């Protein structure tokens, strides 16, 4: 099998990997780059556990050809915390009990970050719409929606 070199920005760092033809971005991030935060849930683009940001927009890594990520800016949950303190989204997920088994959490956080980056003051309906592609089987969605809204309010206060 031939390998193709692919370079992209991974959580702010220039990264180069050799990928198999047909490999998807999820496998390349997990096995090639070693970033285990995106999760395999279905491989069919239905569960959202592998959600990553490509140039700021949420994508399902299991459906993205790795070669299509060349030259793009990839963000994952592993890069969400940039300083000594967790990102407000992470802290409100923790404090609001918005995770139980935690398997859907990285995807939820990425979908939420994409929303808050684009619209800092979302309505509850917008939050629900933003995570409508992410399945959770443990906690129910209410604490997750509450946590995203609380994080949005805190982030607006910080900017103002």
């Amino acid at each position: 099998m031939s390998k193709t070199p692919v370079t992209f920005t991974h959580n702010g760092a220039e990264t180069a990997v050799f990928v198999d033809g047909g490999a998807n971005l999820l496998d390349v991030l997990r096995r090639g780059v070693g970033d285990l935060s995106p999760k395999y849930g279905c491989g069919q683009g239905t569960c959202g556990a592998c959600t990553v940001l490509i140039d700021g927009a949420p994508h399902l890594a299991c459906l993205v050809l790795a070669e299509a990520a060349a030259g793009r800016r990839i963000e994952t949950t592993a890069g969400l915390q940039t300083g000594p303190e967790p990102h407000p989204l992470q802290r409100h997920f923790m404090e609001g009990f918005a995770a139980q088994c935690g398997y859907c959490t990285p995807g939820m956080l990425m979908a939420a970050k994409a929303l808050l980056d684009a619209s800092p003051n979302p309505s509850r309906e917008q939050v629900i719409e933003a995570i409508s592609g992410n399945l959770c089987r443990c906690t129910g969605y209410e604490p997750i929606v509450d946590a995203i809204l609380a994080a949005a309010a805190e982030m607006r206060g910080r900017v103002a």
Partner: protein
Amino acid sequence: MSSIEFRKDLFADERDDTLSEIGHPRLRQDILGHVTGRTRYYDDHLFDGLLHMRCVRSPHHHARIRHIDTAAAERMEGVVRIVWPTDVPRNLNTLLSLIGFGRDDEALLSPTKVAYRGEPVLAVIAVTERAAREAVAAVRVDWEVLPHVLDVEEAIAPGAPSVNETYPNNTFDYHERYDHQKLRFGDVEAGFAAADHIVEAEYQMSPIEQAPMETCGAIAAPETNDRYVCHTATQALFFSLGTTAKLLEIASSRLHFIGGTVGGGFGGKVDSITEPMAVLGAMLTGRPVKFMWDREEEMQVGAPRGGERWRIKDGVAADGRIIARSFTGFFDAGAYTRLSSYAIVKGTGHLPGPYTIPNVASNVFCVFTNRTPATAMRGFGITGVDFAIECHMDRVAEAVGVDPVELRILNAYRDGDMKPHRRVAKNCALIECCQVAAAKAGIRLSPEMAAASSLTGGGGARAEIPETATDEVGRIGERRQRAMPTAPLEGATAKRRVPAGTQGSSVGAAAPQRADMAMDPRRVGHRVEDGGYQPVPGRARDASRPAAPAAAPPAASAPMPGANAARPGRDPGPPAAPTAAPPAPPAAPSSSSAPRPPEPKPYEPEQPFQKGIKRPGVSRFLSGTRRR
């Protein structure tokens, strides 16, 4: 925004807690890993040289394997090893064999026959997942498709295909002898006879997939100390370890299992299938091997909560008191036992729901069909029958013309009541829950129901264990002549009557470990009297009955066939019934002076039907009536 309301007034004297934790989120100890993506699930352990294992699965519900051709797959690039059923050292197991319950009935890789769609027959180990998939697709299996059965009652009908070779009758054998799990408390037929209303209905619950976000899987690798490490998604780490040790005939001390971080389970990760596969792969190749179900496999072969069918018949007094309730249940175990046998035992202990009913009977069948094997899921054994019971309560309320909430309060367990599995109810709270819920919903309760309490009105006569109806040879429930004779009664007289004092010993029961565990004949099915069996007056009706079981009351779904002993039940009992002959005292104290009878030998069946003999006519207990 909390909508939690504390009702500390309820059961205030029973609790010393402050409820201070409720309604206040607490940080989970593992939450920081979850929100940073650093929690390591089994698939987050990276190994150099990892191999991937995938299974060749049956596309048929039921088929025999004529031949498997792996030549093309073996030649494919990246294929390391084909794993055959003969590679599994001990290729037959049942999950609960670790606690000695049930017979081994399921192969890790089926060597001869498949009994459900998706059953694995072969595995391929390759250097990439893609190579493994392509090799699996290149394996050619020559199937001889067999007739299949997907419905529980069709599966126990005469002539149904035999799903599971270990249980050729398509039913799990309880206590190695019985094709169903039985519960008897009082006399339901007498209760039905005394009732003002009879309410019957059938309920069906479909199988439900747990669908955890993380699919089932395991990674195993040789360690450097002659052990194998196994990272697994299992919910039952030591179960999986023991099962792996058994199937692979390897000392459990050579298995190093690491788990506990589960990406959602809900009961679907207790079946211990992926771990033996992964460890077997590591043993055969000497390299790290991952065996992971994709989502399609999770949905197709991941064991769901099994389907259940319940028939409930209630005898209800005009005022709404339920005086008799009988169940016939069919549990769809799928092709193999897994945990369904246990779920039925558990569910039977739950009957008849949280209600005090003086006459209860139940026959529940664990049935094998050509469906995906069923296993645990949240509250399994309870959830399905609770659905049926609560639907039925509403139906009863409508039939009797009582408010459904009041019907539940009227019949609810109160502290001190006796449950049909002979345990005293305590810490009951259904009445209070109903009262609070009614208030919230704006339902006005009658003053009597609004004043009811779980703390009062229970016990007393309601805590007496009623005499259980037995047939003319002293058996609980229906007789099973002809097709499948049950054990001959040890020491039975020429008329097959039960002499006194043999209670419990004639069926090979273990000796009681403590004096207070000795069986009290007043509490079990046989009615025994000093000096031999004496028919009780109520039996007179039996004698006038035709011997043919067709006399069983109204055909279709009277679940208690035969209905031999027509002794009146306690609660609704016609007061004229002169059955009050005092129960015989336990044998032990009276035998101090009398010569002790020789200890009867434990019963050993000469030809136990359950060991694989297809019984003619199969079950006669469909719908509770004997088969014609």
